[in-house]
């Protein structure tokens, strides 16, 4: 085998250095490049207009080939790959969900109750988890060409009915876990698709930028989960930026709580104002940045700042937020511009760079990104 090194840096193209053995190219590092970004390929592949049949077929082929390359890229945890081994047959982009039931215990994974392809049962928590995991996979695959959490078809596992009256949902590094809520303040956590999208996105972040869950990098980790959680809901409901609620966890509070959701991306700090819970403490700009030792340095509070920046980009550009704004955020998360210790300013600069690379310096997208981060006080205003 011959070591081949290729290099390309087209506008809109994607380049990544790989350090692994591949059967075609021999020992790494290698640059893998595709000129057409995956989201365009996906859009082309879905065209059913007969005039574009050939382009659609070619795009579908390219996506299949691409997905193998993305599997090789493997994010933060590439799997070993040797030339002699053949990959197991699997259709890229197809979800592989397993829902388990903890039966009120705090033991994982619990009893397996629904596997991929099995029909819905009578338990709403199981059905909601299954459906929203599918919706999340659908968003990441069709819009960003990402195959599951790790980009390589990792099975999506979730456990419902965790603990007794457990007021939480979390990603434990391997699976999503959902409590039933206490019935007084919180309903079951599977009730909100944005919560399920939020948890799964923590997995995506773990396999990509792996932002440390503390302080500003932690608040970015939280915000990215809110961004893609909101996009899962909007994409499923086919809601444009103007039509969407931009709420995270809508329906999660019981009727006894004075509040509509856990967080508002459009207007951080306005999601609830309740006698027992107090007022939504999220700041909407750096002027209100919360310094605290609790909550890992306020990761669920200060996430309001980057959340609003994303909303402002979507508002400025109009249309569907999972398109241009989502693409900018996704490419930034999975690119080389952000890493474990990135703070708000570094992430903001990286999104601006991504917008300039994808849509042109000084273009509407680039301008919207710069203005959004300036409005929330993270970057200085445009000249």
């Amino acid at each position, binding site marked *: 085998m011959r070591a081949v090194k290729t290099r390309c840096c087209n506008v809109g193209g994607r380049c990544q250095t790989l350090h692994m053995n591949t059967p075609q190219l021999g020992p790494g590092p290698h640059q893998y490049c595709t000129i057409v970004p995956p989201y365009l390929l996906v859009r082309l592949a879905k065209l059913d207009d007969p005039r574009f049949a050939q382009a659609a077929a070619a795009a579908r082929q390219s996506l299949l080939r691409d997905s193998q390359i993305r599997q090789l890229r493997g994010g933060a945890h590439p799997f070993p790959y040797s030339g002699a081994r053949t990959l197991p047959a699997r259709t890229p982009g197809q979800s592989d969900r397993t829902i388990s039931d903890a039966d009120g215990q705090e033991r994982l994974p619990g009893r397996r109750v629904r596997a991929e392809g099995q029909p819905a049962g009578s338990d709403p928590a199981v059905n909601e988890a299954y459906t929203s995991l599918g919706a999340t996979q659908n968003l990441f695959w069709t819009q960003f060409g990402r195959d599951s959490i790790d980009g390589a078809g990792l099975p999506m596992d979730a456990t419902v009915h965790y603990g007794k009256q457990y*007021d*939480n*949902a*979390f*990603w*434990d*590094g391997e699976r999503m876990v959902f409590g039933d809520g206490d019935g007084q303040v*919180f309903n079951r*956590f599977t009730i909100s698709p944005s*919560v399920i999208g*939020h*948890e799964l996105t*923590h997995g995506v972040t773990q396999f990509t930028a792996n932002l440390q*869950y*503390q302080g500003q990098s*932690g608040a970015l*980790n*939280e915000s990215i*989960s809110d961004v893609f959680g909101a996009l899962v809901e909007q994409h499923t409901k086919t809601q444009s930026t103007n039509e969407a609620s931009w709420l995270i*966890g809508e329906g*999660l509070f019981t009727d006894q709580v004075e509040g509509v959701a*856990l*967080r508002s991306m459009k207007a951080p700090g306005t999601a609830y104002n309740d006698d027992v*819970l107090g007022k939504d403490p999220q700041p909407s700009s750096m002027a209100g940045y919360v310094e605290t*030792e*609790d*909550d*890992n340095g306020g*990761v*669920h*509070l200060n996430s309001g700042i980057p959340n609003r920046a994303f909303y402002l980009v979507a508002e400025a550009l109009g249309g569907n937020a999972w398109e241009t704004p989502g693409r900018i955020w996704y490419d930034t998360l999975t690119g080389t511009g952000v890493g474990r210790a990135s703070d708000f300013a570094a992430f903001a600069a990286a999104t601006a760079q991504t917008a300039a690379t994808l849509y042109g310096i000084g273009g509407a997208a680039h301008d919207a990104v710069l203005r959004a981060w300036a409005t929330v006080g993270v970057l200085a205003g445009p000249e």
Partner: protein
Amino acid sequence: MKVIVSRSGGMAGIRLTWEVRVEEQPDPATWADFLNSLPWDDVTDSEATPDRFAYRIRCAPHEVVLAEPQVNGPWRDLVNRVKAANGM
């Protein structure tokens, strides 16, 4: 003597605090013995994981911060007792 348990984080990011004044409890001596028996100095730092709760437990002169998976054994017992004394 009082013990304060503060829970922050979680997916909702809502902070809740429960407090117990030991001398106001029906069994203050049992409470005091229990609080003194806790392994205050054995708590180690733990890597934060997304959306788990973080517990801050204060009982002067002690203060510890526990990640949710660390709230086991006597700590779990403490949190449950403090919540129960607050009618939770």
